[in-house]
Structures are given as structure tokens and as C-alpha cells.
């Protein structure tokens, strides 16, 4: 394992692979805060958030043998977290198509950002991006909320950089369209 991985992580990963549950618990406790912050971009429901964080660590455990240690453990976890969140959005979109039509949420961007709390601001952006398909939503979320550049987005999603650039461009265009429509609608 390369030096990119801290000694603590390296020991816990090795022990976890040998079936030591306590070592894996240590890893979860060390990183669950950062993973939760990332998964909070994928849901605004605290119950779903817990489920998603749990899914990330369960999936990470089953992929642990494939962890080569070329990058810090958190980077590797973030890629899994992105995949879990993206699948969650896609399955949610499929369920919504089957069960209920998308209800129009009222966007109130007219209230100046400075007058909003950070939670209200995050909620407004979340609602806005939720109107887009999952792939557009993902690329915009990573770009605007996670502050990833195209290289980092490519690394987290597994898409190549050209595809990321194309998707980002298209997603922004769609976003402008939504903002335009909502603006014409009189909000």
C-alpha cells in the first residue's frame, strides 16, 4: 500500500479484511461525518441520509479488497458515495415516474441569498437541481455544491473528462431553461 494512506487507516483496513469488525467500526467512525456531509447533497431527509451513509460503508466493505491505496481512503470512499447517491436518485426518479407525476415546487430565488440561512440556501439549490435528470443533477451538484473541478468530477463519477465537460455544459443549459421558465411564470 502506498504512503497516500495513513498508517491508522492502513492497519484498520488490513484488520477489516481479516474479518475484524471493530477495526471496520473505527474506519466508519473516522469518516462517517465527511461521508454524511457529501450524502446530504443527495437527500434532505435525515432518515434517508443515515440509510445512504450506511449503504456507502457496506458497499465500501465489500469493495475493500479492491482498494489499492494509491489515494487516501477518503477519496476512494467519496467515489463510492457518489455512486450510491447517484443510484439513489435514479431509482427515486424511476419510482416517481411510476407512482406519481413530478409536482412543481415553487422556487423562490428572488429572496436575496444573504437573507437566507445556509440551510435555506442549500434547500433552494437542492429543489432547483431536483428538476433535472439524475446525471445533470449529479454534475451540477458536484460542481456547485462540492466545488469539484472537471477532473475531480471525472474521478468521482468514473466518466471521462470530455463527457463531464459535455454534461456540465448541457446541464447548465437546462438549468438556464428552468430558471427562464420559472422567471416567465412570474416568481
Amino acid at each position: 500500500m502506498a504512503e497516500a494512506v495513513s498508517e491508522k487507516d492502513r492497519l484498520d483496513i488490513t484488520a477489516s479484511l481479516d474479518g475484524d469488525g471493530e477495526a471496520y467500526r473505527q474506519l466508519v467512525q473516522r469518516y462517517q461525518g465527511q461521508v454524511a456531509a457529501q450524502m446530504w447533497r443527495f437527500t434532505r431527509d435525515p432518515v434517508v441520509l443515515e440509510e445512504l451513509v450506511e449503504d456507502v460503508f457496506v458497499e465500501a466493505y465489500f469493495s475493500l479488497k479492491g482498494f489499492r491505496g494509491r489515494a487516501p481512503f477518503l477519496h476512494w470512499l467519496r467515489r463510492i458515495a457518489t455512486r450510491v447517491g447517484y443510484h439513489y436518485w435514479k431509482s427515486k426518479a424511476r419510482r416517481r415516474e411510476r407512482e406519481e407525476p413530478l409536482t412543481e415546487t415553487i422556487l423562490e430565488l428572488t429572496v436575496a441569498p444573504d437573507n437566507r440561512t445556509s440551510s435555506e440556501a442549500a434547500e433552494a439549490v437542492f429543489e432547483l437541481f431536483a428538476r433535472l435528470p439524475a446525471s445533470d443533477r449529479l454534475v451540477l451538484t458536484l460542481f456547485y455544491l462540492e466545488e469539484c473541478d472537471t477532473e475531480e468530477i471525472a474521478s468521482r463519477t468514473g466518466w471521462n473528462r470530455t463527457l463531464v465537460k459535455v454534461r456540465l455544459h448541457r446541464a447548465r443549459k437546462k438549468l438556464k431553461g428552468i430558471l427562464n421558465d420559472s422567471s416567465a411564470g412570474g416568481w
Partner: protein
Amino acid sequence: MTDLLKIMEALADRGRREEPPVVDVSSRVVLRLRSEVPRPAWPMVFVASSAVVAAAAVLILSFPFIEMLTDPWSAFFVIAANVVP
């Protein structure tokens, strides 16, 4: 339009500062893994002792054949005596 995008970017800036809810899923993850990780169908001690018993049985059953190799004539007569009525 540009203004709306700028407002959205400003909102995203502010939204990034939001503190996510605190979660502790470590116990749940470990519990779930205990139930999901496949265990060996047979305990290793049982498998090992069964293998020893099986090897001993094969050895005992193969004694006549070993004897046939070391002393073929006596083995032949013993078998013949058992076969011929």
C-alpha cells in the same frame, strides 16, 4: 437570466456552509455486515476432522489392495476362497 444564475451560484456558496445532521451508523454497519457477510457452510474444525476420518477409512479399505501388491498369491487365494462357493 445571468442574474438568476448568479443568485443560484450565491445560494450554492451559502448552502455549502450548511452543517449536515450528525450521524452515527458505525454499529448499524457492523451489525449489517455480520448478517450479510457469507460464513463458511461448515466450521473448519468439522471439515478437518471429517477429512481425517475419511482418509483413515480409505486407508483401511485399501489394505487388501496393498496386500495384493506386496503378496499377490496369498491375496489371490484369499479372494478366490471367498468368491468360490
